[in-house]
């Protein structure tokens, strides 16, 4: 079991170093590459924590599509980040305070991987049992996702749909903007 912990520790350390590199860097392309690497390592981490479906999603959605979107957007944006003049004291302080609270509370959290923790005793066994008996699907995650908590997934589909519609509404018609945009303004002029 110690080896599992070692693998975890290793991956987490890599993620930490990537995150620190992210703070340091000011080049946009490097930021994007590092974010992608971060997502990929996170996906690996999910695998070691037994969350294969999540790893699948993180690898394809988090690392794949987000990176491509970042790259696509990056093409039209300034390539470097400017050093800010204002002090970063308050943000650092508030992050440290929040992190302190979290670490303070972590002593009362159930230890990682203990079967006796309430999280593993309360609802989850029902899913594991039910997936076989009520639904008859080997992949418990799918049965929870699509049936037990199908409504969440519905909401999530709607979130994706919302984002799609929103981005289309915001970006799509930039090509013809010049013509379209002048029309309402002329009208306004007439009225005024």
């Amino acid at each position, binding site marked *: 079991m110690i080896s599992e912990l070692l693998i975890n520790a290793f991956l987490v350390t890599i993620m930490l170093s990537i995150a620190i590199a992210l703070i340091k860097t000011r080049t946009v392309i490097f930021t994007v590459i590092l974010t992608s690497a971060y997502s990929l390592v996170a996906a690996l981490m999910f695998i070691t924590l037994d969350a294969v479906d999540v790893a699948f999603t993180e690898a394809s959605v988090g690392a794949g599509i987000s990176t491509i979107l970042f790259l696509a957007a990056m093409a039209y944006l300034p390539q470097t980040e400017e050093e800010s003049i204002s002090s970063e004291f308050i943000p650092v302080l508030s992050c440290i305070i929040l992190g302190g*609270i*979290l670490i*303070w*509370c*972590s*002593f*009362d*959290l*159930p230890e990682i991987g203990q079967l006796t*923790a*309430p*999280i*593993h*005793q*309360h*609802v*989850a066994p*029902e*899913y594991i049992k*039910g997936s076989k008996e009520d639904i008859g699907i080997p992949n418990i995650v799918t049965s929870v996702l699509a*049936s*037990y*908590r*199908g*409504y*969440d997934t519905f*909401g*999530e589909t*709607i*979130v994706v*749909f*919302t*984002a799609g*519609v*929103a981005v*289309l*509404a*915001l970006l*799509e*018609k930039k090509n*013809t*903007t010049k013509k*379209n*945009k002048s*029309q*309402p303004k002329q*009208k*306004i002029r007439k*009225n*005024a």
Partner: protein
Amino acid sequence: MIDILIKNLPIIVVLCPLMMSLFVVLIPNIFFSWALTTLSTFLTFLFSILLYQEIQIHSHISYALGKWIPPIGIEYIIDKVAIIPIIIISGISFLATIFAYKIMPEEIEKKSISKVYSLWLLAIAGLLGLVTTGDAFNLFVFLEISSLASVALVAMGAHKDKQALVAAYNYLIIGAVGATLYVIGVGLLYGLTGTLNMADLTNRIADLNNNRALIAGFGFMIVGIMVKAAVFPLHIWLPRAYAYAPSAVSVLLAATATKASLYIIARILFSIFENSENLINNTLLFVILPLSLLAMFAGTIMAIYEKDIKRLLAHSSVAQIGYITLAFAIGTKASIAAGFIHMFNHAIIKGGLFIAITSIGFYIKRRVTINNLSGLGREMPITFFCFVLCSLSLAGLPLTAGFISKLYLIKASISSDGIWLAILILISSALSVVYLWKIIEVMWMREGKKIVKKENPTIYISLIIITFLNIYFGLDASLVVNGSFDAADRLIGDLK
């Protein structure tokens, strides 16, 4: 068929705008997409009225989605508390949709109108889902639906003024951070208890006194929602977002968006954590009460110095949210009821004010600032009249809805904490008269150039209805008051 409808009413209320939004996006015609939107908001309103009647009979409806018994599946809970925001949201959104017909095509590119209406419905559906759900994580999903849709709607104001983009961006980032904080909180609670169902959560945290993770989880949850509800120090996204959004969108958001989050705050404070009294009492006394008082004054003072009218109203919203949280913070049955009364009344007041201001903006074709308003009162008598009535209501003059809420709030504060709170509330109300008077004075007293030719009746339907509501609920408040007291009863029961 009616059986099915009645049985599934809780979900149908949410589903109606949600499913319609999927169809609306496919209709390119401006009129038909508007008509479908109006139809679905109307149906939603109708269903919520039906639901209200159901609630009067059953008093508590639990709807298990997918027929899975609650801790396993997701549950919808509708009781006498939840029905208040449902009615507010569906009613106001119906009025706002009618109002949008003329305004929307003027302010947004014609090509994207159907998408905007789709987002409009999604925002409404998200808010309704937020209110009805009884599952902590499902709440997050609907929170995101509503906030992504509202962000996009705010950003559509960029056609008129580019600052809308920055406003929308800030709204998005701050909202997303808030939502993520909420998720951390839910995660900590889930790690402790193993459940996400709110009712189940209440039972299972009962024996976790002074658990540090519980306290932290509570803190993160409440802070996350407070960001969405624009409670005082976390309100910075609100004024800009409301000011630069397209007019119809400001009406919708100002009247509904924060109400849902405020309701969630009430739920978290008094329902989910009802068993950890110490924690809640301390939070109310040392966090929410001071913040509310600060909000009341800071919002009002900001409003007094503001010259952009939409922003002014947004700052005033911050102050009014302060009243509502103050009512929660006092924590007695009467005060919570007062909070709900004010939630309802504030929705109709702010709705009316924003409709009036944006229809003025619609005529003068520029941003509504204090300098641009001169003399408009005489040119637009109906609008001006409605605006004045709504302002009186906001200031809390007798015979208006605002008076009722102030009355109950002051009564509740006197009976619990003594006179000083009541005095503070009165002072802040008096201050709110200052900025309202400023506007009215400019509109009526000053001379201005003639711009407006004729008032367009289509815009006035909503305005007149909402002003009428303001007066009506000032004269006969029994419906609202009874409903709110029922809600408060349900929330804190016989505890206090």
